[in-house]
């Protein structure tokens, strides 16, 4: 067993800390240490984007980052988006535009989409497609996801 390292990560505004193995991925830290299971794992090769979270406000695939790299940083998962009982408008947009079927890609999509619209406040359809290219969805064919993101950007 390799040496354990202490990490302290602010997750959804809460201070969290744990002893982890150096190889622990951020997604494992979230799911296994903190029991925040919204962030999904869909692949072993950083290809699917189901694990997308925000690290200091930027979308990252949490399976490509070690927990120790997030030490001292701010992480937001889809569980941390709502403002009290009020869902984030991106979450509402996905609901209202049928931007999901099985929903496995959804947490990652929502996180990637928020970061996308932050970078490009008035995206075109093409911008959205390019921005979400790293997030796979096997159910929807993407159209309703793209519509959800455009609806959110318009309604902002």
């Amino acid at each position, binding site marked *: 067993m390799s040496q354990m390292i202490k990490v302290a990560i602010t997750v959804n505004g809460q201070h969290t800390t744990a002893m982890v193995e150096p190889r622990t991925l951020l997604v494992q830290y979230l799911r296994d240490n903190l*029991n*925040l*299971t*919204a*962030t*999904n*794992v*869909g*692949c*072993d*090769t950083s*290809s*699917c984007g*189901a694990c997308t979270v925000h690290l200091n406000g930027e979308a990252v695939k949490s399976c490509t980052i070690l927990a120790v790299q997030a030490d001292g940083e701010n992480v937001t*998962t*889809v*569980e941390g*988006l*709502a403002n009290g009982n009020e*869902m984030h408008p991106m*979450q*509402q947009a*996905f*609901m*209202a*535009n*049928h931007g*999901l*079927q*099985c*929903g*496995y*890609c*959804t*947490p990652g999509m*929502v996180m990637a989409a928020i970061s996308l619209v932050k970078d490009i406040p008035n995206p075109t359809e*093409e911008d*959205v*497609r*390019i921005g*979400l*290219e*790293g*997030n*796979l*969805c*096997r*159910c*929807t*064919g*993407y*159209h*309703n*996801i*793209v519509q959800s993101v455009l609806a959110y950007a318009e309604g902002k």
Partner: protein
Amino acid sequence: MSVKTRTRRDILGTSALRPDAVPKVQGKFAFSSDLWAENMLWGATLRSPHAYARIVSIDTTAAWKIDGVECVLTHEDVPGKPTYGLIASDQPVLARDFVRYMGEPVVLVAGDHPETCRRALAAIKVEYEVLEPLVDPEKSIDLSVPPIHPDGNLIRRQQIIRGDQSLIGEVVVEGNYELGMQDQAFLGTEAALALPDPGGTGVELYVATQWLHEDRGQIAACLNLPEDKVRLVLGGVGGAFGAREDISLQVHSCLLALRTSRPVKMQYSRQESFFGHVHRHPARIWMRHHATKDGRLLRVEARVVMDGGAYASTSSAVLINAVTHVQGPYKCEHATVDGYAVRTNNPPCGAMRGFGVVQACFAHEGQMDKLALACGISPVDIRLINAMETGDRLITGQTILNSAPVAQCIRETAEIPMPPNMTNDTDVLAIPGGSGLTATPSKIRRGIGWGVSIKNLMYSEGFDDFSTARCTVEDGRVSLKFATSEVGQGFVTLAPQIARTVLGLDEVFIETIDTGIGSAGSTSASRQTWMSGGAVNGACKLVATNIIAEVAKMRGLDPSTLQIQGTDIVDLSGNAVESVVAATKGKRFSETYEFHHQPTGELDENGQGDCHTAFAFVAHRAVVDVDPDLGLVKVVQIATAQDVGRVLNPLSLLGQVEGGIAQGLGLAVMEEIIVENGRVRNPSFTDYLLPTALDAPDVIARYVEVPDPYAPLGAKGVGEPPCISVTPAIVAAIRDATGVDLLRVPVRPQDICL
């Protein structure tokens, strides 16, 4: 009193939203992979590294000694039936004397952590005598290789012989078509949590599956437990597409839980998932079409070979779908068809969206284009001339009794405007090669192609297909109980829509989806809207009758003069007697209903018989841009008109159409499990490519609404048709753009540019 005319929300025909969208967008929805129990162990599987080998010995001693390992199981530890399988029980729970495909399960371990399990798997010694794998399906047909399984190398042969066997058309075209192996690639991999009953007398399994009751039967047999001691609860399902119809980790997780008397969770990685479920059958199909010189189809000859891989799964049913659909949605009187589903040492194949018809359609649509060319008529006209109608006979002799608006689907598709031509300011990302800037825009060639298909709905060949639902109304609230797997398709949206419409009540709840009620059958074969929709509709109608009877009794009215309209119970003149909410205040009504579809029969040795129960049709037109230098393809637009019977939820329907089209596009130009001498070469999402948001084409969909007389809600299943004829349409468009006679999918760059 004036009659209230308020538009009700979320009834049939509206775009009611998914009730599970709320937890799903918030990350509160528990997928099977999220399940957890106190004191839980992890299970893991040791798989065969060989496509074909004899097991000489298995030594698990070292694994048992690892700290944290609680249990190591081999075939000797299976207490009941040693095999399982959907149609034939031919697949060992754990391999005994032979392994027959790469990835076949051999040993199970349970430990306190996934890492412990991984170390335990590494410590197990299995000695193999490696054998030469049988990988050529033709060798399974000609019986030139000794059987690789006690059941033999031929899973099923079915011929269809109809009409004049020596008829030669004025025009004759033929082709050899081939399809690669596609993966369902649901995003949420296989996962389950098994909870043993105290004393090991039973087990409860939370699992992502398409058919709870079928799983239960197979699990109980292998565990040697009565079925009522095995309870299944649907765990959150991250997509299915056929890959969850067969057993994967169900029996394994229960075995480990019962043996250790502790909860056991199993979950496959993406790589393991590629080995953990069946795939779409690769196929080789030869077809020869005979027609009059003005393009009327007279006779189809076909030879269909489907590689079922090492175990039978649903291969025999997939074969029947393929051979009975070779004519496509076209009138045809004479047929000579020979079909084989065979066993090899390739990965096992079974259900995937389209189920055998995808393969047949790729070939028959290629043939229709060849016929059009030979007769000098357009791809649209050749299809219109031959379009099937209600009352026509299939090559099985079965008469189509369903609505069959084939010509209408084609015409409506043809009316959809074409996408604009590429111009100088077309975004580089929209042309083949995208941001790689590899294409010279002036060299890009555009092509247009067509595909039309017929798909059987629900189960065939005499299977007693049914679904069960219970409706309970209490105090103005409805609760619905069924075992219908929600895999993302949206039955949890539809069922409350039905209840609201029938009962006039707005508040509807869905009870836990589990085996605590009769079977719903599988979420497959485009069947749940028809079957479970029929069951929910039936149960709600029985309850509605009871409510009306009660109101009539209380008020001394004749129940036959009352009905539910909107949210009220009204009399013959349409005046509200009482609201349904008020009528059910303080009362409880509950009814269970079992829905069966019209019975089907078997095929005889000449492939004659009414083996299917219903059909749906769809047309696709594809527009593609191709860079002929590099062989790269961009699918620009898919236009489609689909025979849906009746639109029950427009938004949900569009989701099925667009999702299906993306999967059909995947098969056309990118997706293939590459198998070399029985070895899978690309079990990951970096090497098995799925369509992304940039690959998904513009989709313009129209719906042809001719209510089906046999469908309980008038609506046909819509899940499979979108992914069937879109594949040949895209390939036809690439042929149109390049002039290359492409006969294999997926079309690879080297197929186009060399």
